[in-house]
């Protein structure tokens, strides 16, 4: 027995040392990346600007591109709260001097905007370049990213209206970021040695077992008016076992659950085709809410065919100047099913 475990130990050690010099061990697996491949994917930009592409863009250019590619979701001035929290707002000239955004302390801003929080300008360049516009990520040229960033910083009065942001002056502008001094790594929640206090927790409970306090201070409970906000809890709990869900909210919703079928399928289709990125069931996103579409076309005999064609072909002008992109990959049957579903109130089940 002891011999057996010894040999196991030897094996384990052998495994360790093998992997320590594993270069070239896994023969035939993986291959060197080409320079073009590295260039295509290695687009990250670090706080020290490693990875920053050459280029420049003016506030004017940024304003144009932003209006065309970003404003539909973020508002013309990055102020919109419709699709995401505002990009701009809540910072002052005083913050630009101190590098600490005061409204984070006094709560004077209704929302924590992006510029209130971000300390590093590289973060914004990197993110806009990799992920925006949301529905067409990685479609911006570096000069456009510089321009957009200049425009956003101009809205926050960090740079003047005639400013041109470039790879050459990013480091200078970094020194003006309103919340540049707002980050700390003095905590115990970084699982490595490079930052923080080495893992020391800031808060500690006490494992008291008996008579731990004299009274129970109940400081918060779910307000009555919120009891129904999450629908019928009876339909969110198992119908067998030690408890049942409380009957709340919309009591009708569950009744139709048996007939999931078609509506659920089409809803899933709307999700997977990306329709839901631009249309809410009850809210405008980039395009009209389905409720608005229903209200406009209710009872019109030809609406189904007309709208199915429009979904496939795309187009603008009915709801505003923002166009809906075409959906050529959608079959006629699916386009019709989607429109039918929208015109029946876009039910979930």
């Amino acid at each position, binding site marked *: 027995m002891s011999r057996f475990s010894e040999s196991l130990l030897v094996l384990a050690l052998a495994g360790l040392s093998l992997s320590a010099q594993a270069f070239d061990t896994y023969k035939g697996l993986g291959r060197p990346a080409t320079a073009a491949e*590295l260039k295509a994917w290695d687009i990250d930009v670090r706080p020290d600007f490693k990875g920053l592409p050459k280029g420049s863009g003016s506030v004017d250019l940024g304003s144009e591109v932003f209006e065309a590619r970003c404003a539909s979701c973020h508002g013309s001035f990055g102020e919109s709260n419709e699709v995401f929290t505002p990009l701009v707002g809540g910072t002052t000239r005083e913050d630009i001097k101190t590098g600490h955004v005061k409204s984070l302390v006094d709560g004077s801003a209704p929302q924590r905007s992006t510029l209130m929080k971000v300390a590093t300008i590289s973060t914004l360049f990197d993110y806009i370049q990799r992920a925006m516009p949301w529905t067409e990520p990685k479609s911006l040229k570096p000069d456009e990213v510089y321009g957009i960033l200049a425009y956003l910083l101009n809205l926050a009065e960090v740079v003047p209206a005639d400013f041109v942001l470039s790879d050459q002056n990013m480091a200078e502008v970094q020194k003006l970021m309103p919340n540049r001094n707002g980050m700390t790594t003095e905590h115990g929640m970084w699982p490595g*040695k490079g930052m923080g206090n080495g893992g020391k927790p800031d808060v500690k409970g006490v494992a008291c077992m008996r008579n731990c306090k004299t009274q129970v201070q109940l400081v918060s409970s779910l307000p*009555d008016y919120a009891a129904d*906000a999450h629908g019928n809890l009876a339909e969110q709990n198992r119908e067998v076992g*030690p408890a049942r869900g*409380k009957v709340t909210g919309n009591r009708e919703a569950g009744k139709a659950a048996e007939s999931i079928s078609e509506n659920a399928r089409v809803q899933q289709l709307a999700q997977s085709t990306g329709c839901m990125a631009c249309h809410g069931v009850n809210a405008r996103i980039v395009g009209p809410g389905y409720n608005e579409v229903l209200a406009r076309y209710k009872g019109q005999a030809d609406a189904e065919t007309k709208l199915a064609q429009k979904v496939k072909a795309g187009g603008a002008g009915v709801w505003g100047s923002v166009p809906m992109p075409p959906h050529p990959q959608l079959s006629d049957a699916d386009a019709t099913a989607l429109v039918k579903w929208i015109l029946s109130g876009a039910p979930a089940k």
Partner: protein
Amino acid sequence: MTEPGQKPGRLRPAPENFLSEAEVKEVARQGASSRRNFLRNSFIAAAGAMAAPALARAAEGDPNILGNPPWTTSLGMPVAANPYGLPSKYERNLVRRESPGLTRVSGSSVAFTPLQGLFGIITPSGLHFERHHQGWHDVDPSKHRLMINGSEPGFLKTAKVYTMDDIMRLPSVSRIHFIECGANTGMEWGNVAVPTVQYSHGMLSCSEFTGVPLRLLLEDCGVDFRKCRYVLAEGADGSSMTRTIPMEMVESGEVFVAYGMNGEMLRPENGYPLRLVVPGVQGVSWVKWLRRIEVGDQPWATKDEAVHYIDLLPDGQHRQYTSVQECKSVITSPSGGQMLLDTGFYNVTGIAWSGRGKVTRVDVSFDGGINWQVARLEGPIQSKALTRFNVNWVWDGKPAILQSRAVDETGYVQPSYGQLRAVRGTKSIYHNNAIQSWKVSETGEVSNVQVL
């Protein structure tokens, strides 16, 4: 995630309107339903479903016994009727759900795991919580690539590209770990905001993952571990999610690139065909649809570690790079939004976990934290995995407040709301690991409350 202001003692008014004004009025008009109401409702439902003569025969015995049900007196379904098996139709209530009003668009949102109905420690793959920043895709595995490169060419011998074929030929490991979003329970920092454990704690799942230790891949590329103390992980989706991981966790062998989850391939919503597993660290670091690993000598301050997943303190500073999910527990049954059937015996059950290692003990209180008793832990207890606990309880029909408190192998004790807020305030959004309280009222209704 959203970052609303908070009013103590009231439902936090989320910026995107938690409830519309009309909804608020409607809710106020209906009022909260009492247990009697609840029982009447379920009685009506049951009576509707059952055949009427059943009642008449009740005196002789249970009609379910006296008259054999159809499944005992007829032929059942053939094999492979469902080539990919599905839960019973009676389980349809337990599905992932969004929390109304939490986010504005479902492509950047969360669907919560129904913890209230789950057993043991493994989350069924179809119920694993979802959090996407730019929607999800079903990525073609034959076209998926993993690239490994360095911030400087000299940081490794060879920058390499691996196909899924390559990765699935390498030596693999299978390990059970929890994954929790850093914002789990984030809606509750200031006050109670949601009714059930699905919404309060459901950005939490636990699975067996299978894949290749990242250390092995880095060694295969000849990485200079002395120079490279940080790793960037990047996804292949539109957001190309990026997060910084400490090299120490890679060197320890814990971090791995996973393709398997609970015995099959990852689900598309969870990163098919490849995701990073970073045990004990908040879910956002477990980059899905993993396409690239870069080794470097500095952290990257990516959007989701410089604008989000930063923890606002009362003095206006944000803690950056807070990655570890500290020790936490919650009772899942009974839990908020449920009604106890009756007085009498209950097996109170819940889950505990720690991003710093193994859970060593869970204490449960029935009186709001005045007195505690030690719960039974179900084995095997694994590092950075969920641990199931159980404790016996006889409910005497009197009001009670149920709490659980976990302790991990570092000696860390899960804090109360009072202890947590004294240091971190209420605006931090992330890393809320406070003791959860469920109030049981005389009617048997269980509701979400906070105790200092």
